């Protein structure tokens, strides 16, 4: 237990350092914007004030558009968070079975279609795929809502999560990478001594002690794909006109609204770093080998 606490604090410290670094970078960029903010003080004191505002999640009002940042960013952040987590799960759900299947059959002929499918899925441009899904669903079936109910019409927003998660889960680039990783790692682990020994002592071929062996690279790669998925969310939300952080970021870009963008970047970095902490904790739980 002490080990967890130690790792946790070490990672939190790393995260804090990194966030300070990120905000410093953003602050520098912010000040680079030529002549846009008259009277905005420069120097370390202003930076510390900015830091305090960020860390206490009071984002204030945007200078450019005059909107209150907090009220628009937080609901969007929650939506995108759910979208990200959902699509990660979906990607794992698709790619891990394909990887396991092709490893157990030994990369033979009849696993090719699935592997080719995973390559196609990871090369397809996600904007086209999203639009295709949108078109097909709305034209031919018309039962999954393709809009997010807002305002007066308090429909069930949960159902509208389905399509974006589906599109993002299928269409991001990580599927083929995870398939290849699982297949290679599984093949390597299947031939280690302890797996063969446990097979000789009666374990079944399918479920055996390989699980611990492949969990480690899987966890590492899944958590390192979080930035990509957040990036993909920008496009998917644009296609579906879905109120999430990505669409917000895009609108902010069109409006040249830098403070909103910086806040979004800050939240995104926060997500990524928290993901890294989770990854470290999970890894230390599975892997008892201490450095």
């Amino acid at each position, binding site marked *: 237990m002490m080990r967890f606490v130690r790792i946790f604090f070490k990672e939190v410290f790393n995260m804090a350092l990194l966030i300070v670094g990120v905000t410093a970078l953003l602050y520098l960029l912010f000040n*680079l914007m030529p002549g846009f903010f008259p009277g905005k003080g420069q120097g370390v004191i202003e930076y510390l004030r900015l830091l305090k505002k960020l860390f206490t999640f009071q984002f204030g009002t945007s200078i450019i558009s005059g909107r209150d940042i907090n009220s628009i960013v937080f609901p969007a952040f929650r939506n995108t968070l759910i979208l990200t987590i959902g699509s990660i799960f979906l990607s794992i759900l698709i790619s891990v079975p394909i990887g396991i299947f092709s490893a157990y059959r030994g990369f033979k002929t009849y696993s*090719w279609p699935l592997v080719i499918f995973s390559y196609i899925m990871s090369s397809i441009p996600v904007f086209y795929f999203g639009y295709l899904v949108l078109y097909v669903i709305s034209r031919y079936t018309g039962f999954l809502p393709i809009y997010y109910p807002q305002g007066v019409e308090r429909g069930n927003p949960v159902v509208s999560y389905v399509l974006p998660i589906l599109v993002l889960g299928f269409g991001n680039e990580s599927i083929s990478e995870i398939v290849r990783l699982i297949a290679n790692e599984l093949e390597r682990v299947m031939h280690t001594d302890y797996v063969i020994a446990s097979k000789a002592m009666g374990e079944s071929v399918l479920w055996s002690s390989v699980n611990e062996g492949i969990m480690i690279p899987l966890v590492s790669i899944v958590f390192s794909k979080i*930035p990509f998925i957040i*990036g993909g969310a920008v496009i998917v939300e644009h296609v579906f006109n879905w109120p999430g952080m990505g669409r917000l*970021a895009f609108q902010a870009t069109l409006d040249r609204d830098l403070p909103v963008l910086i806040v979004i*970047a800050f939240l995104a*970095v926060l997500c990524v770093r928290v993901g890294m902490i989770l990854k470290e904790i999970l890894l230390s739980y599975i892997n008892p080998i201490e450095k």
Partner: protein
Amino acid sequence: MKRFYFEKEKPNIEYFHVPLSKRASVRDVVSIGFGLFVVSYLFVFFGISVTGTFIKDPMEVNIGAMFLSPSLEHLFGTDFLGRDIFSRIVKGTEAFFIPGLISISVSTTFGLLFGIISGFYPKYFAKIIFFFLNIIDSIPRIIFILIIIVLFNPSIYLIMTFVGISSIPKIASYIKSKVEVLKNQHSIEAARALGLSQWAIIFKHIIWLSTKPVLIIRATLGMGESILIETSLSYLGIGVQEPTPSWGNMVAMGKDFFFQGKIWLSTIPAGVILFTIMGLYLLGDGLNSIYNEKVSR
């Protein structure tokens, strides 16, 4: 009940010389062949569009010939302004070819540089370098680019430079791990080599051994990613602008016509994107598995 797999007659009585096909390498050969085909047509298209030797002018507006479906006359049909889609696709390679090359050269050079330095001095330089690299690595790439766009209003070349910068951390950490492994091997050898091997020789050895796989493999995968980013940006409208064709903005323009049944305006550029990126990924993976070939038991 016999089933024949292979029958070969050899008068040699000493050995059993019966070649069976190697399954893994067939797959690799197919992937690499496909990838090389993609690379070659990219070069051809780029060459055509740079020299301007089109069969049909990609910018020529021809209202009378709007919305023609694919035929022998117009290989991929015409779009909503009567322009030939095939020529526009050929010209679209211009939008990502050079920027993609810029991006991969930036990422590989600086990745190599930082990776090798951190590999050789894992205690001092590595910590500092990786602190900064982790900062860059934590920001999702598209958001990074959006910020850059708001700040600098850049051309596509500058955008791609920053894309390259954002890919540096991965390459640097990969090379750092490789260099560390190699360094341990060579340090034992160097201790036995009576101090004759100079630093330069070790440098050359390690750098050569560690960069050979990375350069080509990461370059192809990086090119694929750059294409995807450029087309995504053009789709969103913040990359290449109309009327200059880019595969992304062709998809964007064409998607409104889906409901009218004219799906080829949007599908064909998307299909070309799919084909190209898949070819590059397959090339990278095929090279990877050939280079890192592990002989199974």
